[in-house]
């Protein structure tokens, strides 16, 4: 027992010292990281759609993490969802604005680690044209073949499927009235 106790105690001391160092660094860095994420999200929301926020809150529904109820002169009341699909390079943040009937007004790919020149093209505003105004009478495209220009997503199928899947899920949440 004693032969295990001494090594275990030494390992515990090393872990304690490591935890102390990490705690100090985290205390300094954490506020900066949170402020940067909030500023980034606000900038992306501004790029997504102009409007006045009425209410917002957390969501625990599939890929939907946060919702914002907003309004503006041209669209009236609409809902913005923060969706978290997984792309080729890992987790992504997708902001999507929906009308109450579930049709997509606009979407913006925010945080992502997609391949430059390939999946990262989804950050371009023109990429989301294939999804706009769909989701109500006309369904959102679920595969590249259902889009008007399949070549636009060629070579970035994983990114496309992640984006389209998240947008379809968001549209369904809005249509089914699952947003508080």
């Amino acid at each position, binding site marked *: 027992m004693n032969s295990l106790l001494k*090594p275990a105690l030494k*390992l515990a001391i090393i872990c304690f010292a*490591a935890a102390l160092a*990490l705690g100090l*660094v985290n205390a300094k*860095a954490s506020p900066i990281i949170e402020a940067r994420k909030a500023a980034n999200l606000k900038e992306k929301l501004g790029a997504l759609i102009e409007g006045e926020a009425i209410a917002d809150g957390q969501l625990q529904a599939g890929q939907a993490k946060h919702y914002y109820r907003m309004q503006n002169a041209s669209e009236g009341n609409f809902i913005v969802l923060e969706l978290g699909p997984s792309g080729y390079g890992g987790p992504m943040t997708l902001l999507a604005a929906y009308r109450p009937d579930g049709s997509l007004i606009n979407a913006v790919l925010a945080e992502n*680690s997609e391949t430059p020149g390939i999946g990262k093209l989804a950050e371009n505003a023109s990429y989301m044209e294939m999804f706009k105004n769909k989701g109500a009478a006309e369904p959102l495209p679920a595969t590249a073949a259902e889009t008007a220009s399949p070549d636009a997503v060629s070579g970035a199928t994983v990114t496309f499927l992640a984006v389209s899947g998240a947008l379809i899920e968001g549209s369904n949440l809005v249509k089914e009235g699952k947003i508080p």
Partner: protein
Amino acid sequence: MNDMNLKEVFTKGLVKENAIFAMGLGLCPTLAVSTMAVNGIGMGALVIFVLVCSNFINSLIRNFVPDQARIPCYIVVIATFVTIVDLIMQAYFPSLSESLGVFVKLVVVNCIVLGRVEAFASKNKPWPSVIDALGIGVGFAGALILISALREIFGAGSITLFPIGNFNGIIKIPLLESKAARMVGLPAGALLVVGYLRALVTSLAAKKTARGG
């Protein structure tokens, strides 16, 4: 360890025992993040920092670390420095942190870092351990930057560096930009580039040995 030995400790990590081209270590992050030159620079700097700090601390505590639990002790120290760097990158270099993604955290289990601690730092004093880490780290960073630059030049027709002031960091290369070989930017292309470079380095080393150098 005298000055001549320290020089040899440093220089062997640059080419003769280069982590990527000679030892074939750390290939997972090499193949995954070497899509842009700036990623190579960032990951290279990260690995140098973690290597130097881990080697230094583990060498300092080498007589304190129990033999039965030496690997967990080494990994705790390595993971601490990787987490510190990850937090600093998220706070002050967010775009680089996004580009490198999960591969920042994977440096904890990068065989280069644990390998040097086990093979050198655990048996030598702190200063030679730091020199060894610097040599291996600089060799790895140099190889990674070369691979990243080649993959981006031929795969995307550009070179991406850190943005400064009005310069957005992207240097576009005429002709190549419109006729880039996209496959070079994909994982298969990464294997090809690393393979050819490794063959070149091995060939040059063999010629040098044959000349008696």
